[in-house]
């Protein structure tokens, strides 16, 4: 099975975010990490390779700092990486990112393409589905299990409120992977060493420019959300906070 995993680098979960001067994005002087759902997508691809043989290729679009995500993936066991390297990719909408990915892989023959179900920065949950449409492939989203069958794959889709659904699909296909589908592995020291020698192909914005158009949507402004709730912060030493909370529970919430 030849599997492509689309991965994204996003600000660390607890990174303090500050708006840039124009108020249209964040200041990039924060620490970054791999988008968590993408880490699960990679892990699933590695497990499928371990079961069925094949190759796992990882791809990301972003500035040079995002190469870290590819290096970690190679260290975990991916075979090759493709880096669409350009700061300009940060501002592209999902539609154009998907078009850039499609252009970068046009000479490859993947059986499966995985993305995380959504990114922790934008949270649109669209890139994988758009990519499937651009490629003309079937797709399924929010996947919790993948099994090989004679006619392709059988996947387990997660629905709301604890419901699930199995779907039979032909290959090639695009799947967006849900967090918690598996347990993430750590890269081993050997893996980290081996990663240095694995192929990493760079693709510039110029290489895919003909596939990319202007964004179809625009962030007019970003801002700290206006609070609608009147939050009361309780302060003091722990014992005092506990007392204050108990008072609230008795007098305001009326559960004591």
């Amino acid at each position, binding site marked *: 099975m030849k599997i492509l995993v689309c991965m994204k680098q996003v600000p660390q979960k607890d990174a303090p975010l500050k708006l840039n001067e124009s108020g249209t994005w964040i200041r990039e002087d924060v620490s970054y990490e791999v988008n968590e759902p993408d880490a699960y997508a990679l892990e699933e691809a590695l497990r499928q390779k371990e079961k069925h043989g094949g190759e796992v290729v990882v791809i990301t679009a972003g500035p040079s700092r995002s190469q870290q995500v590819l290096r970690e993936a190679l260290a975990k066991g991916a075979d090759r990486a493709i880096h669409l390297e350009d700061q300009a990719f940060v501002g592209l909408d999902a539609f154009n990112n998907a078009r850039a990915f499609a252009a970068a892989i046009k000479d490859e023959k993947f059986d499966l393409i995985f993305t995380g179900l959504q990114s922790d920065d934008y949270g649109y949950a669209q890139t994988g*589905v758009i990519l499937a449409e651009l490629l003309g492939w079937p797709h399924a989203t929010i996947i919790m299990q993948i099994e090989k069958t004679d006619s392709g794959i059988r996947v387990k889709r997660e629905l709301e409120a604890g419901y699930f659904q199995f*779907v039979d699909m032909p290959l090639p296909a695009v799947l967006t992977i849900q967090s918690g589908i598996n347990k993430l592995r750590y890269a081993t020291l050997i893996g980290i060493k081996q990663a240095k020698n694995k192929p990493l192909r760079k693709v510039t914005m110029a290489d895919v420019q003909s596939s990319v158009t*202007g964004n*179809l949507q625009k962030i007019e402004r970003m*801002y700290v*959300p206006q609070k609608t*709730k009147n939050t009361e912060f309780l302060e003091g030493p722990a014992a005092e*906070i506990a007392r204050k909370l108990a008072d609230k529970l008795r007098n305001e919430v009326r559960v004591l």
Partner: protein
Amino acid sequence: MPESILVVVEQREGKLNRVSWETLTAGQALSAETGWALQAAVAGNSVGALAGEVAGKKVTKVYAVESPKLDPYTPDAFAAGLRQFIETQRPNLVLMPHTYQVRDFVPKLATAMGRTVISDCIGYKKEGAKLVFTRQMFQGKLAADVSFSCESPWFVTFQNGAFRGDKVEAGASAAPVETVKVEIPENVIRNKPQEVFKEAKQAVDLTQAEIIVSIGRGIKEQKNIELAKQLAEALGGEIAASRPICDSGWLPMDRQIGSSGQTVAPKLYLALGISGAIQHIVGMKGSRTIIAVNKDSEAPIFEIADYAVVGNLFDIVPPLIEEVKKAKAGA
């Protein structure tokens, strides 16, 4: 064609998904502000009765978009069928609830039409002639106002709870209902879905709990859950958790609160070590009182908390358990 807003109402297995009333409320508000006529559509095999239900609300017209190939749901069929319908109707705006099913097909539908979706919106603003849609970024830490840079139709999905379904206006009289048959050619549908099912037997119905003590990654280790359980017990409430805790197997899946788990609105929701990621918040933001304890002062959970403690839950919870026990003993 007069300018219009189309709300695509969701049905699953012949039943209207109630979150669609929220989308209709949004459509009614947008219609009032823009002057564009509000229409609704429901897609499926034989959905006339469902269209009739929607026609009782204040809309100018309801369409039953039908094809046997729309049942069972597949993204291929829904994208193809709705594309046909939308290309004839040419609404300015197409609104849908941000459900797992909508996420599965609307980006495909928009892309096939050379358009885009602004998804998971929590509101909108009209700025002159332009509409901008507000959505959360970075798991709720920041908000963004987003506009369309392309021609209509403009696709928007709204987050659960962004609008009040119970505030949808009824119509003075039933709106006309029209059935529209769509043709979905052979070979369009590639997925073969099986029956929808619920996984494990649900031992607890958290929607019935008055008090919920919920834990997130801040609990750090499985053995620490015992502390949260003691607090739940002292309060007479149920223990629950955000997704990562259940993914790790530390609590069973039927304890999960959030978009993939249960949606609850108890009298008291006590969030311990929960950052407040959007997927969790949508499952509990309707709680009457929310108390949050988290080490990170920037945690998005504090946006919706009534009472907030920026601190270490391991310092706070043990004395809190004692205070609760004292109070219950009649102190």
